[in-house]
Structure formats: C-alpha cells, structure tokens
C-alpha cells in the first residue's frame, strides 16, 4: 500500500515535469538562440546556452530591420480602440437588452447569439468584398470594424453579469431623478468592472495574437501589426535564425510581462468568459 502510494507520487511529479518541459523547451531554444552570433548559432546545439548573454545585436536588427516599431505602434492603436469599443458596445447592448423588454428585443438577442455561431474565418471570402467596397481595405479601420462587429462574446459576458446588478439600484436612482443615461454611466458601468476586466483580457489576447485579419485586410507595410511584421521575417532573414528568434522574443515579451502581472485576472477572465 505504502509503495503503491509512493509510486503514484513519483508518477504525478514525473508527468508534471514532463509536461512543463514540453511547454518550456521550445521557448527556451528561441531564447538561447536570440543571444547567439551567426557563427555561434551554426556551430552550437539548440539547447546550448549562448556565450554572451549581453549580445543584443540580434534584437537591434530584428527591431529595426524587421520594422517592429511600426508593428507595435499599429497593434497598440488597434488594441486600445477595439478593447474600449467592445466594452462600450457590449455594455450598451447588454444594458438595453437586460433592463428593457420591447417589441423585437428577443430577436435582437437572438441575432447576437446567432452571430457567435459563425466562425469568422469561414466568411472572409465575402467579408473581404464588403471591406473593399466600403473603402476600408488597407486602412487601420478594416481591423477595427471587424474586431468591433464580429466578435460578440462581450455582449454575453455583460448580460450574465447584469443579473447580479439589482434593478432596485436603478429604481432608487430614478427616485432621485437620474436619467437612464446617468444610470448606465454612474451605476451600471462602474458595477460591471469585474466583467470589463474579463472582456479586456479576452479581447486583448485575441487582438494582439490575431494574424489573418491584418494579413488579409492591411497588407500595406505602414499598417503591419506585430503578427504580420513577424510573418515577414521568414523572407529577408532567410536562414538567419538568430535574428528571427530575437523577433519572436520581442513579440513574446509583452505577453510574458502581462501574464506575470495579471495572472489572477487572466485565469478568472478565461474561466468566466467560457461558461456561457
């Protein structure tokens, strides 16, 4: 019995270490390679540590030759507008649909529900023509309107959360003469804060990591985002893996920092966001 228990513990930690190794090793190899010189990269193994940990030459080249500054700038602009826009749109729709029942309100809710069933990647063929005809192709607005108009998950997260904001709060504010606009701005929006954090995180991760929207709709070099600038690395840097890996690290670092500081919120955000 005792040996059986010990064996279980050994197996438990062995599998955990194995799982962690699988998760870490691909990233570790990128990290090591990004500090190596060209000849060093060619002559050492993938998991050999670099000779000089302070060799930032690859980072400098990736950042300047790979045009990553433009990528960061565009990503940040799109990210901020999309995240704030989604929060506003989602909370406004949720407020109206939760607090008022009116003719057609069921159908509107149904329309938002139905839209989440459509996987965006399947409809690109036709979406492209619409973006093109609206004159949004190769403008930053292409990504923004698509992020605001197609990913409706925020409506649900807010709708669910609205259940916990008592209607009696609205009513007492109305006795004080508050308008519905004031109720939305001063009562509902502040109380939605935990749900807003969830939406910020889910939307932020999606926008930062999205590839095909900027790739299809904003091919212009000035409009590249982190994903698309990194995608272009394969060509010009060809076999210069030490530079490519530095570019990958540059894209990963913001994610790592966000993860370290927001861990708790990220876990909660994903768990709340997925339970529909």
């Amino acid at each position, binding site marked *: 019995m005792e040996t059986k228990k010990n064996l279980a513990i050994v197996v438990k930690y062995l599998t955990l270490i194995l799982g962690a190794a699988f998760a870490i090793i691909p990233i570790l190899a990128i990290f090591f390679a990004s500090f190596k010189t060209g000849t060093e990269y060619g002559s050492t193994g993938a998991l050999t540590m670099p000779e000089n940990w302070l060799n930032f030459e690859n980072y400098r080249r990736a950042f300047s030759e790979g045009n990553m500054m433009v990528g960061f700038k565009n990503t940040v602009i799109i990210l901020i507008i999309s995240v704030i826009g989604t929060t506003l749109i989602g909370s406004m729709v949720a407020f109206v649909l939760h607090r*008022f029942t009116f003719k057609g309100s069921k159908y509107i809710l149904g329309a938002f529900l139905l839209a989440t069933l459509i*996987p965006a990647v399947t*409809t690109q*063929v*036709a979406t492209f*023509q619409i973006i093109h005809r609206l004159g949004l192709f190769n403008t930053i607005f292409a990504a923004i309107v698509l992020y605001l108009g197609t990913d409706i998950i925020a409506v649900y997260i807010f709708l669910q959360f609205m259940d916990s904001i008592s209607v009696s709060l609205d009513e007492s504010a109305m006795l004080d003469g508050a308008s519905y606009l004031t109720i939305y701005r001063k009562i509902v929006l502040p109380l939605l804060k935990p749900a807003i954090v969830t939406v910020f995180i889910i939307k932020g991760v999606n926008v930062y990591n999205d590839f095909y929207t900027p790739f299809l709709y904003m091919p212009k070099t000035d409009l590249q985002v982190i*994903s698309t600038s990194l995608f272009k690395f394969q060509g010009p840097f060809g076999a210069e893996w030490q530079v490519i890996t530095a570019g990958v690290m540059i894209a990963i670092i913001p994610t790592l920092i966000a993860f370290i500081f927001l861990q708790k919120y990220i876990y909660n955000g994903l768990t709340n966001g*997925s339970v529909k």
Partner: protein
Amino acid sequence: MSKLKEIISKMSFSNISYKAQRNIIIIAFLAVPMTLLATFAFLPVINMFWYSFTDWNGYSKMNFVGLDNYKTIFSNPEYFSVFRVSLYYFFATFVQLGIALYFATILSFEVKFKNFFKGVLFFPYLLNGVAIGLMFLLFFRADGTLDTVLHAIGLGDYTQMWLGNPKLINISLAGVSVWRYMGFNFIIFLGAISSIPNEIYEASEIDGANRWHQFIYIILPSIKIIVSLNLILAVSGSLSAFEIPFIMTGGANGSATFVIQTVNTAFRYGKIGLGSAMAVVLLFIVVVVTGIQRKFFSEGD
C-alpha cells in the same frame, strides 16, 4: 467646462419622461452595434450564399451557375480530400483534452509548486500565433530543438524530417496545435473542478474512495458539461484549422487544410464563387456540429 456640459446635458435629458428616455436609449444604444453586426457578421454570410451559385472572380460580371461550384467541390478530389487533413487535427483534439483533463485533475489536489506548473502549462495559449509558428519551424528543423532533445536522451536514431516527410507533416503540425491550445482547456477544467465543494471529497474518503474513484464518480460527472462544451469547441476549431499550417508551411507538402484551400481558391486564384461554396460547406458542417452540442447541452441539464 466639461462639467458644465455634463450638467446641461443631464438637465435636458432627465427632463424628458422616462418612457421617452427609454425609447431614445434603446435606439441610441443599439444603432451602432446593430449596424456593425448586420454589416460584418450577417451580410457576409448572405453574400457568401449568393456568390456560391455564381462564377464570380471578383471584378468581372457575375454569372449564375447553379450548383456547379458544389459539384466541383464534391467531385474534384483536389478540393474535398483536404478534409482528410482535418482528421489529424480532429484526433489531436482528443489528445489535447485528455492531457488537459489529466493535469487539471492532478493540480486540483495538493501539489508542490502548484502555481509554477499551472502557469507553465497554461502560458503557451497566450502566445502570438506567428511567434508559435516560427518557434516550431526552429523546433522541427534538422538538428533543431526536437532533434537535439532526442539526441540528448539517447533517442538520436529516431530523428526524422518532421516537416519534410508527407506522412509526418500533419502529425507534427497537429502537435503544435495541441501545444498551443491545451492550456486553454486545462485552465477551464481546473476552474470547473475547483468549484466542486471540498466536503464531497472528504465524505468519499470516509467511504474509502481513492483518487481514481473520486475522479470517476465525483470529478467527471460534475464537469461533464464543461468537457462536452470544450470537446465541441475543439472539434469545430479543428475543422477550421488555419493559422499554424498557413504560417509554418503555407499548406505545402500535403498540409493544406480546408480553410487554407478556401483562402487560396478565393484570394490567390480569384475564384470567389468556388471559394464561397467551400466556405458554405464548412459553415454548414460547423453549424451542424454546434447544433449537436446544443442538444447535448439541453439533455445534460
């Protein structure tokens, strides 16, 4: 100044009756979201159906061709056979959920360095898809990360052309997909398991249940719905696999998935009509799968 404006607007708006306010708010708050929803979520679907019955190439005149595009998809192996590639991602989905469930169960009980393991297993999910693609191009290269590891643990004879061998390429790529998405399922399962009250485990221990019994009789039944939801999500995800193979191989060497084929048909070869028909077929399949999920759901309750 802004304060003054605020006061003025509040005064004027709150002077209107609540009934009128209500109507104004409903229209004002829904106008923009509904327009965006209609234009970018529903109009594309309607247009796509329409295009799928034409031979449109994006600029010339549209000709109605009836079901020709659909006939091409189902009769020309070049188009439909790529669904075979989806099967690799489909099976990988089960591996992914299995691993996620295993680690979620283990980490729900007492473990040293719990937060470290949780963070490490989850972190890949947050990474940029292109970064992952490039990372794994390096991983699978000859003498790359994987080969180095195999040599280090004495399995050097097993090194392969991971992306060069057409028999292996889809397994390698599906593996990347597991690496990328496992953390998501893991964290969701972990959340679901942690909401099971502790007293239930304690009571079962008094009755002599071991960990395996607890897993089968307590954990699994309580998270059944979450597991089936994740399963269906992962299945529809596997059908529409696109990013990883597109970034890593561009669909070369037999790794083109149905979505890559659709995007190429429509955008590279300008066959918007045919591409739309392919998208309709995929949409149909995904909707059917999701429908099955909903049924599952209502029966599970």
